[in-house]
């Protein structure tokens, strides 16, 4: 095999490798975050239906002195 043939083959192989390397990988959308967020939003909605926000509001609007180390 002639040197020029070997050289052109090598260039072709190098070119294909570089092309593969510079090509951005296909974007794969992760499903786990959406499932996680959905599950917790449902959980929150259940909490709302049970009336928990009023309980949270009641606690948050009262100063709990022992909770902050006073008394």
């Amino acid at each position, binding site marked *: 095999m002639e040197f020029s043939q070997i050289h052109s083959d090598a260039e072709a192989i190098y070119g294909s490798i570089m092309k593969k390397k510079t090509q951005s990988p296909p974007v794969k959308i992760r499903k786990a975050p959406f499932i996680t967020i959905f599950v*917790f939003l449902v959980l929150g909605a259940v*909490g709302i239906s049970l009336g928990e926000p009023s309980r949270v509001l009641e606690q*948050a609007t009262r*100063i709990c002195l022992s909770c902050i180390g006073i008394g």
Partner: protein
Amino acid sequence: MEFVRKWVQALFFLITNGYWNFPVTRGIYQGPLKVICSPGLNCYSCPAATSYCPLGALQQLMGGIRLALENGQIYVGFYVIGAMGAIGGFVGRMVCGWACPFGLFQELLHKIPSPKFGIWRPLRFIKYALLLFMVVLLPLFATDAFGFGQTWFCKYVCPAGTLEAGLPMLLLQPELRASLGLLFLNKLVILIFFISWSVVASRPFCRTACPLGAFYALFSNVKLVKLRLDRERCTNCEACHTVCPMGVHFNESPDDMECISCLACSKACNFNAISLEVGGIPLSAQPPCRPGKTQLQ
């Protein structure tokens, strides 16, 4: 990006502490906004606080479960856990880097010129123990004669509560000073300890003792917004090791539970190997390499 992050931190600080009428009322905000969950650690007994602290609310609910169930009320914390989990699922510990007032406070303290030290990495497990025992198990099971559990973490540890609520309330209501005791002294010592530590080490409370950070860290593999490492570009030059405020070796563990997505590593990377992604989609197309920089082989 650091400039933007500081502004976002300041914005969140002002949003979650937006009640500036407290010097007049000498009390805390009692309006309807307090039904909204603060993403970061922000004591709801702080006079300026406009939202509830997820850790405080969770402990209150855990402590009150037994009593509530006995009274036929199903208050088991779904609303609070749902809000915390949704935030965790969206951004995870990005909250620590971008939205936590106490994180901002520690960062500012760390700017004080002094010798700087690292933090022994196994200490990070303390925060998981605090989350399990002082936020969940003790409020749930160590109940008083009436069946009500205490807010153990708030009462005995939380330095954010002492700084944002304890000290301001003592200034606003001088009559409270008569009831100070060992409990407050203990909390004051913890606050001074973390303030001093923050000057010489980066974010010591976040890294060792914050149960909220520990909770959000549980979402490090499934959060929507996260940093991604392009292994093709990474040369393992370890530039990301030296700039990380949380001691993360990003090129070795891109899903590290300690990562707060502050983007310091992304800025430091000369090879654009670190970028932000949303649900697997990169937010920006990265150029091959920064101009003027030589790619290591």
